[in-house]
């Protein structure tokens, strides 16, 4: 029998659908994918190296640039690690503000996910709606810290500025708007038969595979493994809030989409509880101007919007970290891409990239 050659297609780094500068080398047999290899490094800025030559305070703005759609969570991860290293106790109010901001950021990030998934499926209108609502969250950030994406708000020892009443009031308004917003998404595309058919049953990643590839975040939860660091290895004041960890059953694109959808709802619930019980008091611990943690190393992780974001920091007793390693969820999650895309059509591969939700700022670091 005659053997046909496989068609090698380079998707990216400039491609309308790949998120940022992800390049995927796809081997095609007709329109079916035989093999796909992610190629990265186009956005490598060497943040780990840059941090080695900056003081701990100066490192925080660099974490904004990792996963630039969920900068609050990144700030929190780094600051949490440094606080652990230097033994700083964070005030109560700051912890609550952190939770509110991080969960708002989770909503915003998941909206980016929904938006980019929809544009990859060719529904530009849905994307605009998702981004329109994300804008409301960004406006909230603009009120509280003066920046929309690179917030640099959570600092070592607390938060830099107190949350104003205006912010809390506007947040309440947004939380009240969330159910209505999700209903509109449901009406426009969740119930849409074309959308369902494209997502259901495609690019399945089983629980075993997800564990094997060390995946985390919504991607592993969609496969049915309840692994949420907020729940199992709680940090901050997350243990005081009542929230569920939505899990999927099959681990297909549809599950990964629904998980994020439900997480927006849960995040809104957490924010509501935090708003109801936010205490008064200081928002910043007493932190020396020049921070000099003792010798040692620490690993601290938080549940970023994309999974488990961890900072491994080695201190040599000076004002600058000796070594920083960033455990980035998107980077690890990309390992599953080949398994997910095998045997699928090209159009599904695009949906698979979108549902794995890698963010190149974080992958390339």
């Amino acid at each position: 029998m005659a053997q046909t050659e496989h068609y090698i297609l380079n998707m990216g780094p400039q491609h309308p659908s790949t998120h940022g500068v992800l390049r995927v080398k796809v081997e095609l047999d007709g329109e079916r994918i035989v093999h796909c290899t992610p190629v990265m490094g186009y956005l490598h800025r060497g943040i780990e190296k840059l941090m080695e030559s900056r003081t701990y305070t100066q490192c925080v703005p660099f974490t904004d640039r990792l996963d630039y759609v969920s900068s609050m969570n990144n700030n929190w991860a780094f600051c949490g690690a440094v606080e652990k290293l230097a033994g700083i106790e964070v005030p109560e109010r700051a912890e609550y503000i952190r939770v509110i901001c991080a969960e708002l950021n989770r909503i915003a990030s998941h909206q980016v996910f929904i938006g980019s998934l929809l544009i990859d499926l060719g529904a530009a209108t849905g994307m605009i709606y998702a981004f329109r609502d994300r804008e409301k969250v960004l406006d909230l950030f603009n009120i509280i810290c003066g920046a929309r994406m690179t917030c640099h708000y959570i600092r070592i020892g607390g938060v830099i500025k107190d949350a104003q009443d205006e912010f809390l009031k506007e947040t309440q308004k947004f939380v009240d708007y969330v159910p209505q917003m999700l209903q509109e998404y449901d009406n426009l595309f969740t119930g849409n038969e074309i959308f369902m058919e494209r997502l259901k049953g495609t690019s399945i990643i089983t629980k075993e595979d997800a564990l094997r590839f060390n995946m985390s975040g919504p991607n592993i939860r969609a496969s049915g493994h309840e692994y949420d660091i907020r729940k199992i290895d709680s940090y901050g004041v997350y243990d005081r809030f009542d929230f569920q960890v939505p899990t999927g059953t099959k681990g297909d694109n549809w599950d990964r989409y629904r998980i994020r959808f439900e997480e927006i709802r849960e995040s809104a619930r957490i924010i509501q509880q935090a708003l109801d019980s936010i205490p008064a008091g200081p928002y910043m611990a007493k932190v020396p101007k020049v921070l000099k943690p003792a010798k040692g190393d620490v690993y601290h992780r938080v549940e970023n919007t994309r999974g488990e974001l961890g900072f491994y920091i080695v201190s040599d007793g000076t004002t600058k970290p000796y070594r920083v390693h960033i455990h980035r969820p998107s980077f690890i999650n990309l390992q599953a891409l080949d398994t997910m895309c095998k045997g699928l059509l090209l159009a599904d591969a695009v949906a698979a990239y979108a549902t794995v939700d890698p963010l190149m700022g974080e992958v390339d670091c």
Partner: protein
Amino acid sequence: MWGKGLIEGMRVTWKHFWGKKETVYYPEEKLPMTERFRGGHLVLDEKKCIGCKLCAMGCPNAAIEVTVEVDENKKRHPVKYVHDLGRCLYCDLCIEACPSKCISWDKNYEAASYFKEDMKYDAVAECRGREKQ
């Protein structure tokens, strides 16, 4: 029934077609910036500045370059205060570091420029220009 979701979706877009628009006519109509907004040029109050260079030291990306002169009363004054927008992270660390609270943002977000050289400006010169007006 197959197709119900499609019709529901058509209804949503139909409603929005006639509904209120969210965007604005940009250059004519500008969104107001918040009180804490970080962006634009640094506004330097030349009189207040004590030339301690803490802002330049606090900057994580070396975007600020201050030249200081000591006058006859042994007081330090900034002669040049060059802020490079191309390097700036807008992280607010310089403003937080300032002991005399002499710098702030001008909140002008239209900072794009045609030439790379325009990204650098001297805040002292801008301050003097403002005073003349």
